């Protein structure tokens, strides 16, 4: 299996707090990995470090073997990694189509001026995540949480990532919406998408992942298939306290 994403001895401190303590793991191309741990375990910080929203104090983060730690966020995205957020962050005064269109823009001012908006591509992406044509000209404020998550996925997919980091992708969704989003993620997975998924909804997470990595207080605990990790004593201790 080809390794696509590697973290090696990554450390991040916020003052006296060690948010990421010597974390190392690899993700293979096409693999889906669940990053699990109790609140404050440092899962979202890992995503922020991979994306360059926080700078790692030490360690290495590589995509296709290329070091990412020196690159700005937008350059990492152009290399093929993108993330969603716990709280969707749409462009409030733009309709759904324009929101997706931002993810499709070229990163050159001249190209932005002289190329037409990729409306058809934006529509295709919107349909692929299950947004209806009637939603395309709605403002984000008019969307349900489920549709906002779909929009967030669409905007992320528009950047054409090879690896998607999904942060609490089921938060605030109804059972029906969870089923729908899970279906979408599985479809993309069949097409070869690589995922790292953070979710507190472990029941919904289980069928989506090949492997789980458990962490607590910024530190690696164990990894393996879902059942093995969940039966690990240290994981049970971190989650349940016994």
């Amino acid at each position, binding site marked *: 299996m080809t390794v696509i994403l590697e973290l090696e001895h990554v450390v991040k401190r916020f003052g006296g707090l060690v948010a990421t303590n010597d974390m190392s793991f690899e993700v293979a191309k096409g693999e889906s990995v669940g990053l699990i741990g109790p609140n404050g375990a440092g899962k979202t910080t890992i995503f922020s470090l991979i994306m360059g929203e926080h700078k790692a104090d030490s360690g290495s983060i590589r995509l296709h073997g290329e070091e990412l730690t020196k690159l700005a966020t937008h350059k990492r995205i152009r290399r093929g990694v993108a993330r969603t957020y716990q709280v969707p962050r749409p462009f409030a005064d*733009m309709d759904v189509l324009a929101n997706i269109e*931002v993810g499709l823009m070229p990163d050159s001012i001249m190209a*932005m*001026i002289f190329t037409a908006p990729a409306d058809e591509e934006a529509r295709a992406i919107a349909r692929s995540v299950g947004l209806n044509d009637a939603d395309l000209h709605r403002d984000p404020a008019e969307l349900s949480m489920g549709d906002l998550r779909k929009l967030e996925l669409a905007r992320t997919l528009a950047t054409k990532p090879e690896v998607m980091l999904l942060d609490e992708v089921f938060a605030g969704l109804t059972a029906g919406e969870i089923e729908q989003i899970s279906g979408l993620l599985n479809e993309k997975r069949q097409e070869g998408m690589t995922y790292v998924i953070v979710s507190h909804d472990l029941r919904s997470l289980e069928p989506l992942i090949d492997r789980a990595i458990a962490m607590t207080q910024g530190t690696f605990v164990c990894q393996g298939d879902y059942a093995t990790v969940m039966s690990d004593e240290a994981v049970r201790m971190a989650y349940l306290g016994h």
Partner: protein
Amino acid sequence: MSTQITWKHLALWALFLGGMALLPMLVGKGTLRTIIFANYLAIFAMSWDVLSGRTGYISFGHPFLIGIGAYTTAILSYRFDVPVGISIPVAVIVTMAAGTLFFLPALRIKGTYFALVTLAFMELMYQLVQVIRPDLTGGTRGISGVQTLTRGAVNGYYLSLALMGVIAISLWAMMKTRLGTALSAIGMNEEAVEGSGLNTTKLKLFAFMVGAGVAGIGGAFYVHYLGSIAPRALFDINFLFTIIVAALIGGASTIIGPMAGAFFLTFLLEYLRPFLPGAERYFIYGSIALILYMYEPKGLYEILRKARERLTGANA
């Protein structure tokens, strides 16, 4: 956000500018001079809007940029006899360079802090032009006798209208592209723009340079219209707030908005003058601006757009 430019849009622009071109036949020279000021204020408000209305980096130091453009051409043409055909382009380039200086704090700070730092730029400029090389800047008294480009109110009006028209259409066409969408997106959520794979530093720098360039053009032509320049009038907090309020009550992040706001404010202040000749006028204008802004934070543009929607909706 970005929509195609259609013949209907161009026809509306032609109608607007054509109508404006007829004004000297309909109004007196006094009113024409008021409109000239409104045209320049519209240019300043549009330049502020490119920089602040779109990206959300609220600048309180816009007169700093206008002043750089105005002083550069005034000094070059008056002190060194440089032809205005050269001094004005040089002034615009110098202002754009100053725009990059303005941009530096935007790399690290935003919101109130950015606004205060830019206000400091204006204050610093106000103090410096009075004490550094007063033989060039004219010190506290400024420079008078600067070459004017036109004679009479009518010619001055046509020059200011042409300038405003070219700037407005150029900015409007630029903002209709994906670039305009990206700049507006920065104002809504800068992190999400970066998270969409776009280099926000480059985009902001571009917006700052375009905004500064337009301020430089406006400042340079304005000083050659007035024929004089004085630091007290230029680096004035009332002048600054007139620019910002014009853009905000007209409708930030649009082109028509700052223009409409500039005309509204100029005529409001002018018509209040016979009743309130002193600074009390600013109290009235401040109150009107506040009420308008509270009623519709997106400004006059949005009020007109909603009215049109209601009318066409009623007709449908």
